């Protein structure tokens, strides 16, 4: 129980502070306390929510969706993050009871509130209601790890963790694979190695005949 309380405290959203007009996003449901153990149903197929409940309230899920789509939009390389369940996978991640995921949760939940505060400060609106030019204005200030202005350092740290997790999820999906150029995971009757155009581009020949 002690551990549970500590985890819940770590994930709590910072107090709403007087003076800013930001609505508090509200506390997320505490994450699961029990993991999937050591003997898993390895051959099963799963979706977020199957092994432990998702914990993001609607307002935060909406914000995650908006930001994930700014980072991974629909374009010539494929669909947007939200079309391939990236927000749900991110929710599963931060709702997990394990230390690594709890560390990310402790960055992501306060970070979401930070983005929302910043959005209200600059544009008096929720991040989810901003135009894409306005969203980019905020993201441009926090998208790098180095050379960030001091007042944005917290936002930048959050953005890095968020982008990392969103990309991990996006490229776990079939459309994500196509966006990257991965075309495997299909059974073949024989393996021919790289095609001729690849060998020529690299200036190599196939040495296994």
């Amino acid at each position, binding site marked *: 129980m002690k551990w549970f309380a500590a985890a819940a405290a770590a994930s709590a959203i910072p107090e709403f502070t007087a003076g800013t007009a930001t609505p508090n996003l509200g506390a997320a449901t505490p994450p699961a306390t029990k*993991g999937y153990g050591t003997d898993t149903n390895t051959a099963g197929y799963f979706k977020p929510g199957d092994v432990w409940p998702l914990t993001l309230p609607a307002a935060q899920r909406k914000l995650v969706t908006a930001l994930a789509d700014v980072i991974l939009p629909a374009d010539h390389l494929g669909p947007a993050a939200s079309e391939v369940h990236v927000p749900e*996978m991110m929710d599963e991640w931060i709702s*997990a009871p*394990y230390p690594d995921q709890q560390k990310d949760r402790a960055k992501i939940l306060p970070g979401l509130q930070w983005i929302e505060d910043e959005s209200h400060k600059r544009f008096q609106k929720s991040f989810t209601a901003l135009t894409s030019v306005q969203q980019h204005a905020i993201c441009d200030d926090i998208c790098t790890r180095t050379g960030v202005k001091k007042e944005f350092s917290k936002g930048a740290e959050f953005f890095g963790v968020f982008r990392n997790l969103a990309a991990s999820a996006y490229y776990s999906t079939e459309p994500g*694979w196509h966006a990257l150029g*991965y075309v495997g995971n299909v059974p073949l009757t024989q*393996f021919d*190695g790289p095609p001729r155009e690849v060998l020529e581009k690299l200036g190599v020949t196939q040495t*296994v005949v």
Partner: protein
Amino acid sequence: MPIIASSQAQPEYDVAIVGSGAGGGQMAYTLTLAGLKCVMLEAGRAYDPGTESAMFQRPDQIPLMNAPTPGKPYGFADATIDGGWEVPGEPYTQASTKAEEQFWWWRARMLGGRTNHWGRISLRNGPYDFKPRSRDGLGFDWPITYADVEPYYTKVEMLVGVFGSNEGLENTPDSPPGVLLPPPKGRAAELYAQKHAKKIGMPIISIHRAVLTKLLDADTLPAKLHPGNPRAQKIVADSMRARAACFWATDCHRGCNIRANYQSTTVHLPPALATGNLDIIPNAHAREVTLGKNGKATGVLYIDKTTGREARVKAKAVVLAASSAESVRILLNSKSAPHPQGLANSSGLVGKYITDSVGVSVSGHVPALENLPAHNEDGAGGPHFYAPWWLYTEQHASRLDFARGYHTEFNGSRSMPGGRNPLSDDLGRGAYGTKFKEEARRYYGSFVGYTARGEMVPNEFCFADLDPAVKDKWGIPVLRWHWKWTDQELNLAAHAIKSYTALIEAMGGKVRGTPKSPRDAIAAPGKVIHEVGGALMGADAKKSVCNGWNQTWDVKNLFLCDAAPFASNSDKNPTLTIMALAWRAGDFIVEQARKGNL
């Protein structure tokens, strides 16, 4: 006979085998096909790769995108059940509080052991590897030679199916013609490395892995493996026919439900069970080898984990193959009035001279590999190429400051994405949106990684004994680890870092990350999961635990058939040698049984 409960065991068996991994699986196969009645005790649960292997699951169909967790260190879908660095209720302890002196002990607890998820890299030891002390004055010679083991390497390769090529390189043995299966084609990054490694003199060739690149020849192989034993031939032929060839997709670490790679559970145990001569008791944790008045082993005392109670099996001979360190633990715990230091330990050497491989990894980014046209490089579910150790001459002439070599394993390139950000922050430089996706696509496939598996020289500081206080949940004393790297390992690590930096630069690439000192770069003790030794074989009963037949000097009907008897830990991964020696020891046991010597 089948998988049974403890209560269904026969009153007595010819042989009791502890453990069902590479060593136990091979032993059960050899003995039961020769007609001996065996019981196998396995601490973990029964496991069926046919129904339990994750094959085509994408990371988005697996909890946490298959990320490592404390309960599943290689992810949810990995073929390790109930095992890992920690096993609940079964601790191990460390003599030192310093991280670099602490041993990470990976333990399997399932039918088939670590062979369900291992990397399938299957290299033969060479002639030097059995006589290292004669060559450089360090460590120990084995009491056997390459020639003694060669026929068994060949048999194991024929049975399990190993792909590779014969290159005629020094101390990197060829297999007899027709034994190896065809090697798979090189991948883009492998071919590119192979070409440019010539500049630095590093040979890159096809690796050997236990994957069926082609169906086994069930019409001819069984007769070669079991001459004069038609029943064995039939059983083995049927088992070979039940295996499919690799379909060039999916990750071998998740296990293979078409039986195209080697797992004890798909290759060794099915034919052994088909003989009717094998009972397997899962959830049976061996505690001690029991001893008769005549000084011979009488069987095994174990915990039936389904009830928590002690139980016994009786046998005319006992084989320990619980993984090298666990077999050490069983010996040390088998104390009796005549053997206060544990069984087979009159030399005082049980637990001593444990080695792991020296692991060092360097990764790089190679611009020439960027933006390649999309193509499928899944291949045989693991590396296709490697670099064997190549500086034997320099080393023998004392021109290097370390005595033993390393081979190089390849990773990376266009493997299945997911669960990780493919574009690290330093390369992405802040990109998000379409720019991020374009950059991720550009860099995908351009990262290379080289990992050394180097030979550690046995030293007196690396050993395991029983913790005087700590017990596991069954009340069995646990192992306590002691570890120290020496300059041998650190200098080897430094050399590997230099070689890989040169290789990456020869490819026009750049090393990723900040260079580390050898002490920081070397994988933590145990992390390579190639721990061997602890009950060395030797020619002298006072200076070793077993003889050249894996038979303990002190107890004639007790055999150690995992890596515990390894007198050295060559750079070649241990498992093929575990199997070859287990088959050889099995033939010896069969012969002794026929002569009535058990």
